[in-house]
């Protein structure tokens, strides 16, 4: 979870403000009575607890107000939850194999990291979900046609090697778009270091 507009979280300062106003809300009407002995003893017990316990006893209005303030703050901060979409009937994985992907500035190298994420996605596929793999090198090429066979897909991913060429991600995406233009809807996942010349 992340916030696109974290400054919106400043609205959370309203939470103590709401509690403060609740503590000092309009006073109850004071009524003089000759004795308290006839009033409910359970209710009488409540009056003997502490100031805060007495003021903040289960109050639906207070809870609703606090909830409204928190939701408003989260909405203003534009809370986003990022996760890989799944569930489309067809998925195309584009893996960048350009020269920059050979860099080993991350664990297992950039290509290794991309392969790992792609394999992880394949592992989570639901039955019946078809996946195609496109290699984005100087000339995008389809390394595996639409298939539901996870072992074939993982093998195709594992066989990818850095090409030492300039990666043409845009062409690879265009190719994937053309493939998806006909037939059921699908999604495209791109694994790249975004190091374009």
């Amino acid at each position, binding site marked *: 979870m992340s916030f696109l507009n974290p400054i919106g979280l400043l609205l959370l300062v309203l939470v103590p403000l709401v509690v403060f106003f609740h503590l000092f809300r309009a006073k*109850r*009407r004071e009524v*003089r009575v000759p004795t308290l*002995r006839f009033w409910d003893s359970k209710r009488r017990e409540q009056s003997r607890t502490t100031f805060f316990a007495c003021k903040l006893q289960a109050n639906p209005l207070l809870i609703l107000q606090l909830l409204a303030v928190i939701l408003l703050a989260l909405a203003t901060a534009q809370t986003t939850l990022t996760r890989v979409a799944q569930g489309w009937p067809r998925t195309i994985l584009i893996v960048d194999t350009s020269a920059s992907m050979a860099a080993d500035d991350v664990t297992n190298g950039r290509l290794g990291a991309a392969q790992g994420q792609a394999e992880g996605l394949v592992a989570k596929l639901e039955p019946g979900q078809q996946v195609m793999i496109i290699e984005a090198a100087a000339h995008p090429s389809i390394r595996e046609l639409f298939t539901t066979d996870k072992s074939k897909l993982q093998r195709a991913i594992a066989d990818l090697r850095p090409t030492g060429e300039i990666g043409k991600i845009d062409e690879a995406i265009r190719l994937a778009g053309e493939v998806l233009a006909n037939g059921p809807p699908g999604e495209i996942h791109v694994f790249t270091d975004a190091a374009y010349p």
Partner: protein
Amino acid sequence: MRDALFNPRFLRNLEQLKLYARRYPIGPYHGERQARRKGHGSDFFDFRPYVPGDDLRYVDWNMFARLDRLILKLFQAEQALCLHILVDTSKSMSIGSPTKLEYALRTAAAFTYIGLLNYEQVGLGLFDSALYRMISPRRGRKQMIHFLEILSDARAHGSTNLESALTNYALQSRERGLVVLISDMFGDRDDDYQRAIAALVARRFEVRVLQLLAPQEVVPNLSGDLKLVDVETGQMLETTADRHAIARYRQNFGRFCEDLKAFCSRHGVLHYSVTTDIPIDELLFIRLREGRFLR
């Protein structure tokens, strides 16, 4: 209060009332009440043989002419009743409009007037958590002003301790008699009124309890979020006077009144409960006659 009490029509009506007592305690003063014993009244009681030393004025000479024996005529004693009026002036009596205390003081003044007018001895006790003012029993209409001054000065203050105040009064009072206790009976403990009444009964007082209640105590006209403040202790209770809370209150209050009534009944104490919205004329001339306080 004096103005209200000395309204001529009200006074004229009061003069027709007499105190009702089931048994007449023996008092030192001659009065208008016939005792169940021989004495110097005007009504015939019994005969007995003459013995030397008897007053010859009471010898029945007609009997002597017929039987040739000296027979003494005995008459029923006539004596004054000793009326003790005890008024609760605790803070809880400041509730209502008119306040229970105003109502209690007017009723006490009326009882005093009726008593003094009928040659009874009248004593007065004012109490809250303790007996703080006591006037020993006295007779004569002239005493009325003195009683009125004391009743007019009474103010609601302090908490209630019926047991302490009434036990003290019973111990200090030399004259037994009829006690009229005017109070809301809200003591500081659940069994406070029980111990208080028992102390008076144990000292052979004939006790009458006139329980004064404000209408809002019987049926609370309250709603919403409230902070209830006990006028005597200052203790506070925050509550919401919803339907259930009011029902629970009425149940507890009803049980308290029933218990009081049952206790009085068990101990031969006459109990009458009245709310302060009843006009005092109606209380004295109708209700207390029905309740056998007055006749």
